[in-house]
């Protein structure tokens, strides 16, 4: 752990990624408290005001405060990344472990399901599920993203498990009659910890992008606000034509920065965990 922290703080990519991510996380946490307004959807001002001291990021066509929407939207984004990405990681891990460790018919069945789901575009699946839900919250949105985003993780984890399964220390554990669950949890999983962390980061980023895509085509949360919904409303209400740039630049910029910071964290971690990749 000490070694990990030492290398982590020597790694520029890791530091930059972490800094950007923390910046947005803190903004999401304290933003709603420092904003002048409490309700992101309340009509508080004149419409289409440019950024000013009263409305830090201006107002929308309806006179809603963009900054308030932005910080609440950030909260939804982190929520979806954490729960949607988390759920996808857990399902992917479970299926990958079971398929890789058990092998045989179960492996064949699970991999068939995985291969089928890999071909079907996640968004298409999300659309058909979300379109029939009359009321959607960000909780449900995270669940359906989590339920559809796991296949590539399962495939990768299975491959890793297969290669670890035949290692000597696993054979030794088998000889000592350790239960399979214990072998997976105590012998195989710790060797994959670094990998799991990285998968989670990628799923986190993927869930955020998937949610933005859903929100943008009108399948976002039916109440509340999110960064994707801000983009959708601004497009629907002609913010582009009217040049209301303060409405659509902040949400997109935040998503781009959060997702790329996650990628930087990921490459950084890769270098930290894998000595051969370390920067000189």
């Amino acid at each position: 752990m000490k070694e990990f922290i030492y290398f982590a703080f020597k790694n520029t990519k890791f530091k930059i990624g972490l800094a950007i991510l923390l910046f947005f996380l803190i903004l999401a946490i304290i933003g709603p408290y420092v904003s002048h307004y409490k309700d992101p959807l309340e009509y508080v001002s004149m419409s289409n005001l440019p950024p000013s001291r009263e409305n830090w990021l201006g107002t929308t066509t309806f006179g809603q405060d963009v900054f308030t929407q932005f910080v609440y939207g950030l909260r939804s984004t982190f929520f979806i990344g954490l729960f949607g990405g988390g759920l996808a990681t857990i399902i992917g891990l479970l299926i990958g472990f079971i398929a890789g460790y058990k092998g045989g018919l179960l492996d064949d069945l699970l991999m068939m399901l995985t291969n089928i789901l890999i071909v079907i575009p996640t968004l298409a699946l999300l659309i058909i599920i979300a379109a029939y839900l009359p009321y959607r919250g960000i909780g449900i949105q995270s669940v359906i993203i989590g339920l559809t985003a796991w296949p590539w993780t399962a495939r990768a984890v299975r491959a890793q498990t297969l290669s670890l399964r035949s290692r000597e220390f696993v054979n030794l554990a088998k000889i000592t009659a350790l239960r399979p669950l214990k072998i997976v949890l105590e012998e195989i999983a710790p060797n994959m910890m670094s990998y799991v962390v990285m998968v989670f980061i990628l799923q986190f980023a993927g869930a955020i992008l998937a949610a933005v895509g859903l929100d943008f085509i009108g399948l976002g949360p039916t109440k509340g606000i999110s960064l994707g919904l801000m983009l959708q409303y601004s497009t629907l209400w002609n913010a582009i034509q009217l040049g209301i740039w303060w409405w659509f630049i902040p949400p997109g910029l935040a998503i781009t920065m959060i997702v790329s910071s996650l990628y930087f964290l990921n490459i950084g971690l890769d270098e930290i965990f894998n000595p051969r990749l370390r920067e000189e």
Partner: protein
Amino acid sequence: MLKYLIKKLYIYILTFFFAVTIDWLIPRFMPGDPIGVLVSRFTGLPESAKVMYSYLTKAFGLQLPLWKQYINFWIAIFKGDLGISIYLYPKPVLSIIAQSVPYTLIVLLPAILLSWTVGNYIGAISARHKSLDSSMLPIFYIITSIPYMWLGILLAWALGIVFGIFPIAGAYSFSMRPNWSWQFVVDFLKHWILPFLSLFIVQIGGWAIGMRNLIIYELEANYSRYLEVLGASEGLIRRYAFKNAILPQITGLALQLGTIVAGSIATEVVFAYPGMGYILLQGILNQDYFLVQGVFLFIIIGVLLANFLVDILYMIVDPRIRLGLGGENV
């Protein structure tokens, strides 16, 4: 070689079966009453609501036993009957989609092929020059993180509104009818360029990252080292590395299709480009479930066909599979 194709085909048929089943299942087993919602949206009078309700129940065939509904659904699909659109009543869903498919393809295909080529090329260059790499790689990662629709919005705003160079909505000017005149083609291209660019630019990042990593990996492989020891020129070693690195990139093309399709849907929405994405948005906003279901099926069929094409391409490019020697991830 044939074995490889048959195995792939088998997965695709299963996938299609699975997708159609989901398409059938979800409207019927979702919590709530989609038809009730539909009716309440479209009719004010209680009597017409009743008529509407019974019409829709019949249209979905909901009064039949489930297994019969399922079989009917399959029969309808093979007849090309995807139902009647509610939003553009009484046009059949199939004809609406058929009209929109060319618009989607004309943006999507060039964007995919060009970004794949350019991305691989830039990635390969980046992998050979260490000094260039350290500044290029972060840029690639930032590009690939941009949500498609946001880049579309930015381009529309910057080039369409601020500088006023390109139109930002539709596939051609309202005053025109599609024909083969020079004037129309120019107008069409002007409308086409921004949606194309937003899809093209975002995809470059991913391909470049992939190619860069693969080339670096291949240059460290034993065969490269061996060639180096033999005194082969650097150009020759790179050419071998490139040949090996291009294979996973072809597989990647198949895996990325889903994300790219999602991106094209969002991009079409931004530019009100009359492709499938735009139709889908109308279907969703107007709760036109037949249209949504139809678009879902078409996306699946398109992705499956594209996957199959990629498989054939892979077979042609990879001599191991072509000669039946087995190969990676068969």
